[in-house]
């Protein structure tokens, strides 16, 4: 039996951040990881997809930049090389996390963790004990019960990242962030991509003005909305389209990205209260056993890497820090790194209306923005939409599609988190020329008064 101040199960952006923070506060921390350090984010999620999407962006620019004065003869895309660059990125980040753990004096144990009781965790034959446990085991792709789902050419986001050759045709089931990013990547590097989504629109978190624009930027992707996949065989995907007609599409490869479920294996002994397929937590991220916390995807509150990291900070602050905090979800930005990026933070217009808030909105085209115009020209899609509380003037939501959206959105998060009003934000100076100026322009479009 080895004793620690804190045991953390899972080393993704929730677990390793928690370990680092607690270690830096001088606590004896045990971090248990069944696979590689870094979790889905580093190894088969956020990071590798960014590496591949950037290679696709370079390829696209090489092909399409003639009007900007650039001529690249015989540009071609080399998948093995792109994969190598991606793997190098992953390895560097993994060693970075290893280094962080060492410098924070965190003990890392590789293996599958089983909770024996509410204070004891077992890995192989060894027992570990701590007054507190953080569950940060993450989530895995859901495989819906579709005939043929078990076939070898049907992949999830985990497997598709180790592809050796590009297929001719790819059908993606599910139009959420993961499905859309892969659709963007594969269609850009020359794969014939079809995306089948059950709902009437892609990307449920997106504002209703932005989602159709994003589809428009993905010209090479064949979208089937309101459609349900009924069967997969070696050659085709069968689906019922929005008009209730049976249809098929030839697919050499299929990617399933319909959602994710909590990884709860090894936690059975704890009999924790669940919210559907996820572990229930309160505003302090405590499970039904108060000294056991659940952060990141496992609690289902916000399946984003940065949410997991913030949850880690909240828990460590409450356990060992000076300030008692609660997890806030109102200003968590999201970003999608399709080749026209999109991002958002706060409420969409429809979400605000559903909450009974009276709102004012303004949308402005990015072609009015200097940098956007200089780099992309007037035909490219770009939009900024702001949602403002009609009574208080507080900024409730910012929604972007266009270049750098993922980098700009943190500013909106700051404004929303601080409950700034339109009149307050008008006093902030934005750098010029930068695409970020669209936020200020949209707010002045909403209310031109000073």
């Amino acid at each position, binding site marked *: 039996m080895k004793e620690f101040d804190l045991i953390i199960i899972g080393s993704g952006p929730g677990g390793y951040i928690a370990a680092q923070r607690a270690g830096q506060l001088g606590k004896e921390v045990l971090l248990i990881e069944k696979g590689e350090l870094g979790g889905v984010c580093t190894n088969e999620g956020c990071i590798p997809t960014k590496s591949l999407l950037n290679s696709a962006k370079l390829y696209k620019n090489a092909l399409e930049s003639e009007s900007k004065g650039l001529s690249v003869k015989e540009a071609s895309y080399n998948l093995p090389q792109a994969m190598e660059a991606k793997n190098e990125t992953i390895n560097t980040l993994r060693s970075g996390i290893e280094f962080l753990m060492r410098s924070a004096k965190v003990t890392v144990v590789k293996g599958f963790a089983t909770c024996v009781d509410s204070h004891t965790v077992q890995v192989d034959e060894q027992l570990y004990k701590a007054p507190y446990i953080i569950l940060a085991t993450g989530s895995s792709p859901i495989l819906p019960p579709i005939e043929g789902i078990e076939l070898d050419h049907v992949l999830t986001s985990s497997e598709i990242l180790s592809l050796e050759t590009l297929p001719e045709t790819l059908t993606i089931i599910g139009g959420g962030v993961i499905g859309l990013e892969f659709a963007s990547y594969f269609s850009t590097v020359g794969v014939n991509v079809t995306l089948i989504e059950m709902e009437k629109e892609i990307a449920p978190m997106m504002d209703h003005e932005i989602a159709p624009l994003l589809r428009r930027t993905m010209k090479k992707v064949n979208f089937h909305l309101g459609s349900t996949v009924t069967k997969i065989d070696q050659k085709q995907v069968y689906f019922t389209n929005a008009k209730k007609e049976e249809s098929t599409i030839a697919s050499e490869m299929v990617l399933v990205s319909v959602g994710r479920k909590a990884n709860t294996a090894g936690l059975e002994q704890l009999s924790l209260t669940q919210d559907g397929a996820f572990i229930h937590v309160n505003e302090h991220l405590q499970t039904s056993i108060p000294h056991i916390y659940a952060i990141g995807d496992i609690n289902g509150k916000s399946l984003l890497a940065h949410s997991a990291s913030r949850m880690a900070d909240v828990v460590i602050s409450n356990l060992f820090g*000076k300030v008692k905090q*609660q997890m*806030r979800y109102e200003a968590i930005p999201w970003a999608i790194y399709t080749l026209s990026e999109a991002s958002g933070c706060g409420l969409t217009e429809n979400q605000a209306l559903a909450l009974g808030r009276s709102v004012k909105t303004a949308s402005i085209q990015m072609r009015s923005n200097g940098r956007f115009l200089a780099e992309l020209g007037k035909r490219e899609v770009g939009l900024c939409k702001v949602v403002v509380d009609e009574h*208080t003037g*507080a900024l409730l939501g910012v929604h972007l599609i266009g270049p750098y959206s993922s980098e700009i959105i943190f500013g909106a998060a700051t404004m929303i*988190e*601080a*409950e700034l*009003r339109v009149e307050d934000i008008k006093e902030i100076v934005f750098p010029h020329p930068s695409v970020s100026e669209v936020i200020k322009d949209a707010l002045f479009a909403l209310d031109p008064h000073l």
Partner: protein
Amino acid sequence: MATEVLMPKQGNTVESCTIIEWKVAVGDMISIGTIVCEAETDKSTIEVESTAEGSVLALLYQEGDDVPVMTPILAVGEKGESYTPPKKEGELEQPQATERQNDSSTDKNSNLVTHTQSPTAEVGASPRAKVAAKQLDINLSLLRGSGAKGLIVEKDVLAHSQSAPILTPVAKEKAQSGNYTIPQTGSGMGQRVLSGDLTLKQEQKESTTTSVTGIRKVIAQRMFESLSTTAQFTLNSFADARMLLSLRKRFKESDEHLNLRTITINDLILYVVSRSLKDFPALNAHYYGETIERFSSVHLGSAVDTPKGLLVPVIKSSESKSLKQISEEFKDLANQAIEGKSLPDDLTGSTFTVTNLGSLGIESFTPVLNIPEVAILGVGAIAPKAVQVENEIEFIPHIALSLTINHQAVDGAPAARFLQHLSHMIAQVDLLLAI
């Protein structure tokens, strides 16, 4: 020969004092009674007076040091005289005689928490600060001291406890109405108070107390007696109000010298009741427990809301009075009641009472018996009611009627029959006027 000035004894329980501020510096000429320093016990702040005169040779402690009472704190002697301070308990080296620094800003304005070298203080806080922190439940390690070398003094603790919470712009604007309670810390960034953290103040109503006298006392007694001594039972019904409304309209538009313009719906109801009760003598009665007294005349009470409270003036022998007479008499009686000029006889002797809350939009209510009467009619508002006429639904205005009876004296069925009769009569009040 140097003389030492001691930290004075402060009562029997104070063991040590913290030097807050030196008022003199080495080289200053002082006399007996000169304030040499300000010090703090756990209960008060004191000024330490010199017990000797001469030139200050040495300050034996620094600001912020906790000094046991009856310990030398400074030495006084001839100008230029040398002085060797005694070795302090627990210290290996002799402390340096502290010269008051010309620029004391490095110490005084330091925001860093630095633990003092005081042998007795564990945390860099003065005794009073510690007491205050304990009382206010404040963690001293979170504070920045403003005293010498970052010593936390009482005013730091108080300032921390009173420090205004940081509000977001939206929260600030919302709070300006004064209707919200602002928490000390909020759920936002850095414990900022978000608009959602503000809670509506419980409305603080100022209460006043008055004695129950006069009409209020009479009403209180009679209402209580009514409900506690009788078996009250209420029946609800409606009457077609179209004729009431059309008559009221015609009266209003009638020739001025007919003097009919002021006849109200309530007057029409009083008229119908005065004419209906003769067929239902059981309801025009008084109940006395042992006996029941029935009346041939209808002395009709009608409730009036006056500034002093509920009064019930009585229209005597209403069954023999015309609609116009009833209307005029009731108007007079009501005005007198409102002005407080009613004669005692005007307010007694009723055999049946009507109370009307229809003008206040009341749909239906439970009238309380005006004992010893055995029945009271409550009149509600006129509102459209869906009625099936042949194969269609029509919305016909109806007036609500609630009859409370004393079940000790009257049974439900005869009461229901009376209410039904009343309803018919109201619907055809134009015909009744001819009788």
